């Protein structure tokens, strides 16, 4: 019944979801048309070469044995080879994943720090000018196509004003003359760790536009979600009771009501976060951002199935972790949380 137990249960559930996804990708890999060995060697390969590769990759072993090996190697961090880049997928992910993560994290931080307070204000001003204005803006924000916004920003901030770079994660001259060691793969963190502030500024300048475009949807969404759940909470008797006890409106809004209202927003932001790992593909392409979205798109275009499996797995893991985090925050906020409080993993 305790919160610890509840969280342990959620974590155990997450392990099963992960195994399920592994089983699914494994099954898909065995039923899709096209022999993996042939895919690996290309369409002109000779039969004995294919046999040799099948032997080498263990493709002739019984399926359960193959599955166990697949799980084992995946868990040990071996995600196989990319047919397209001819490199271990893990190697590719080492730069791709942090690139996307950095982008998505920055946009999520923007959504929380900008969207949530605006949602609170909107609810407290319900029906008044600020609220009407914010509702119009956020409807635009959730419905504007990201590629269009991206092009618009590039036109304004690169072409016209020349304030911000067109794309990429760093300027070429920084890469050549002033590189820094990559520890986390997050340039903003690595440059700061190296004390290379010029590179840090350059990385920041590069991330502003893509992060702003990527953040537009989650910011607008969190304004709307926060507003809706705040309105519900503000009509509760305990808020009237707080007013009756003389607490200030700021305290009531941000210290009390927000704690009661924040969880739906966090849940949705968590989903958007996980979705953006691959869903940022248009933004990544327009801003030449070397992340997961463009990696996955190339894999799709070139039938690079193991990359797709790996990406699926990564996205699943991110979903699981994000959901666990949200559960954790919820359990930390709400003392009434019980086992079986939710069934989605």
């Amino acid at each position, binding site marked *: 019944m305790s919160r610890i137990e509840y969280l342990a249960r959620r974590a155990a559930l997450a392990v099963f979801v992960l195994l399920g996804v592994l089983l699914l990708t494994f099954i898909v890999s065995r039923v899709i048309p096209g022999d993996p060995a042939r895919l690996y060697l290309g369409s002109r390969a000779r039969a004995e070469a294919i046999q040799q590769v099948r032997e080498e990759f263990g493709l002739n072993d019984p399926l359960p044995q193959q599955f166990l090996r697949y799980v084992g190697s995946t868990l040990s961090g071996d995600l196989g080879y990319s047919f397209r880049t001819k490199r271990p997928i893990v190697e590719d992910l080492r730069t791709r994943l942090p690139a996307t993560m950095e982008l998505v994290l920055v946009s999520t931080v923007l959504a929380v720090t900008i969207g949530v307070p605006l949602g609170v204000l909107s609810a407290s001003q319900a029906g008044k000018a600020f609220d009407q204005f914010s509702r119009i803006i956020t409807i635009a924000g959730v419905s504007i196509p990201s590629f269009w916004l991206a092009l618009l920003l590039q036109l304004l901030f690169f072409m016209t004003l020349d304030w911000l770079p067109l794309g990429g994660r760093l300027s070429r001259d920084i890469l050549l003359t002033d590189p820094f060691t990559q520890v986390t793969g997050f340039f903003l963190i690595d440059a700061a760790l190296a004390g290379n502030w010029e590179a840090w500024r350059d990385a920041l300048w590069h991330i502003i536009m893509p992060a702003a475009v990527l953040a537009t949807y989650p910011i607008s969404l969190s304004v709307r979600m926060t507003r809706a759940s705040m309105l519900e909470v503000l009509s509760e*008797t305990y808020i009237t*009771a707080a*007013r*009756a*006890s*003389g*607490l200030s409106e700021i305290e009531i809004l941000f210290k009390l009501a927000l704690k009661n209202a924040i969880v739906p927003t966090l849940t949705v932001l968590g989903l958007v976060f996980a979705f953006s790992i691959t869903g940022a593909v248009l933004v990544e392409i327009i801003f030449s951002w070397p992340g997961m979205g463009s990696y996955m798109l190339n894999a799709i275009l070139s039938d690079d199935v193991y990359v797709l499996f790996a990406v699926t797995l990564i996205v699943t893991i991110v979903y699981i972790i994000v959901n666990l985090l949200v559960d954790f925050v919820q359990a930390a906020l709400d*003392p009434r949380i019980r086992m079986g409080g939710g069934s989605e993993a």
Partner: protein
Amino acid sequence: MSPASAQPLLAIDDLHISFPTPRGELRAVRGISFQVEPGEIFGIVGESGCGKTVTGRSILGLVPQPGRISGGRIMFQGSDLTAMSQAELRHLRGNRIAMIFQDPSAALNPLFTIGQQLLGIMKRHDPGKRAGHLDAAVSLLADLGLPQPESLLDSYPHQLSGGMQQRAMIAMALAAEPDLIVADEPTTALDVTIQAQILDLLVALKEKRGVTIVFITHDLGVVAETCDHVAVFYLGQIVEQGTAREIFKAPRHPYTQGLLAALPSPDAGQDALKVIPGSVGDMVGDGVGCAFAPRCEFRMPHCDRQTPTLMPLGGQQQAACFLYDEIGEGT
């Protein structure tokens, strides 16, 4: 101070509260006046929907949206609450005037411990001295008959029984030692045995701490055991008021008589329970004539054409009914 010269703690004068509705103004409170003396329990009694909560909330400047005070004054310790800014009201709320709600499980925030909520109010009205607050909170909870107050401070509302929740709520109302507490049906949501305990507690607060209480209830029976003065509400108006003793001994208004007759008495069985026939009328419209007329067995022709006002009936008793017209003018 002598009772004669004492200024009333609260004097409500011709209060009107209305809500805009698609059908027109809903006049929830229509010209109410009463006075509450320091150190008494003043009962407001009436059926559901007659404007008790709205009146009680107006004393804290918290009329529910979209309602507003459309006329009259609420004088508290000599100053008019209806003329105060929100900032001024916030200084009074919790500090000089506090409120207890009907359903404690809804009025306590589920995500904060009793201690966080209680100490928050203490800190708000008396910043500084943290440790002092903690001691004060513990002894307050103990005073209110709550066992193990230290561990209670770390409990969340859902871990307490209804009776304990309401005691905790009362502790929060008392946290800043207010002069006036508005208790809106504080026992309605509780079991009968717990009800009696909470009522005893309120009476003890009055007697030991000298707290003044405006006690709102739909149950006339509860009023008899608790209140000093009573105002009987009907459709946003006071139809009868006086001391609790006067009203119970000799109710004059047909509505009050009906309410009293409807109370289950110890020697009558359940089937002897009388209920006033008819249902409460409409609050939209200007309401010429006696509001109770549609349900009144003594209804006279002019009851529909003129609106009765409160008439003095001797002692402190007053009733708004044409049956007592001559008494009011003559003897």
